[in-house]
């Protein structure tokens, strides 16, 4: 029988049994997931549900990046943190919550944040990257790092009652710069940062990010590459969008990229985005 030849031990067969029963995932999917490594950048609203579901599902190595500490006004949406964690490192708090669910998980903690200095070194340790950040410079930085290091990037965002989700830099799909070669004017971003978010909206998008990361790591289903989900929480509607392919003249992922391993450390994403 399959149970005598696969690489799961009896504890894993029990823990993941309901998942092993899904024909399109099965033992092969669980084995791939258990031997994969996934990096979640940002342990806030998106990262809370993304990290918890990746930990529960049985990813082999989970990476957590955030340099902030937990604040009271995070708790309306950041369900990975508890009141007693207020004032402590978000990465440490998130890792503790993940271990409570799944003590067999290996967790790599990066409490110093993500910058042009450490991005490539961190990203190279992982198979799949999840962008769960909340600002524009990070979105360009993470996309560029994933392009240079050749990693697929699951990217989610949420604001107010709106959410967006896609997979960048996978097969022939676009990277973030293919879609947005020029950053938006500062005036368009300022208003965003002031407008808040209904707590469960990043929770929904973060769970969907975990799903896409699990699909990529386990080889299940069709990843959301060259496609985007647009969520309108007010109406309870999702739109399924068909996106462009990779742009051959993209400065990051194109045929003659300007952004390379050699010059990556010199990039200034705050200056580029005007933040």
């Amino acid at each position, binding site marked *: 029988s399959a149970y005598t030849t696969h690489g799961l031990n009896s504890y894993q067969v029990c823990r993941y049994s309901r998942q092993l029963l899904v024909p399109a995932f099965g033992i092969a999917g669980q084995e791939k997931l258990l031997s994969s490594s996934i990096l979640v950048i*940002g342990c*806030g*609203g*998106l*990262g809370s549900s993304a990290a918890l579901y990746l930990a529960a599902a049985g990813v082999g190595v989970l990476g957590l990046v955030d340099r902030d500490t937990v604040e009271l006004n995070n708790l309306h949406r950041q369900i990975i943190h508890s009141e007693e964690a207020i004032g402590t490192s978000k990465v440490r708090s998130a890792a503790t919550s993940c271990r409570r669910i799944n003590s067999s998980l290996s967790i790599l903690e990066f409490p110093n944040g993500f910058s042009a200095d450490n991005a490539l070194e961190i990203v190279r340790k992982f198979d799949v990257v999840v962008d*769960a*950040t*909340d*600002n*524009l410079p990070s*979105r360009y930085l993470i996309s560029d790092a994933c392009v240079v290091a050749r990693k697929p990037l699951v990217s*989610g*965002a*949420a*604001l*107010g009652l*709106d*959410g*967006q989700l896609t997979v960048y830099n996978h097969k022939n799909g676009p990277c973030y710069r293919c*879609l*947005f*070669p*020029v*950053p*938006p*004017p500062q*005036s*368009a*971003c300022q*208003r*965003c*940062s002031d*407008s808040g*978010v209904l707590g469960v909206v*990043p929770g929904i*998008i*973060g769970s969907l990010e975990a799903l896409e990361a699990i699909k990529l790591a386990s080889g299940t289903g069709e990843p959301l590459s060259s496609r985007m989900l*647009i969520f*309108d929480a007010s109406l309870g509607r999702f*739109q*399924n*969008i*068909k*996106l*462009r392919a990779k742009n051959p003249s993209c400065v990051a992922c194109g045929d003659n990229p300007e952004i390379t391993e050699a010059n990556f450390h010199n990039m200034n994403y705050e200056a580029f985005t005007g933040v």
Partner: protein
Amino acid sequence: MWAHSRGGLELLFGSVKCHEVDLDSNEITVEKLLVWIRENLLKERQEMFLKGKSVRPGVLVLINDYDWELMGHLEAPIKDKDSVVFISTLHGG
């Protein structure tokens, strides 16, 4: 046709997400639609939506759920029953 705005852009249109637009001709281009929107719907802060003849950086244009890059960009044709969505990329989380 219907013009929709999302991701905060609807605030530029008096918080109305959907506008029905009656086309004078059977078919126009996105470029002409942007001119019409500037003259008829967008009362203020045009720089939050437009730049030159196109939309500002950070705005995606979707025609019947397809990225306008796949449909001809500014030259993409729009017919009577089409749906056009203008969506601002989000960075929050």
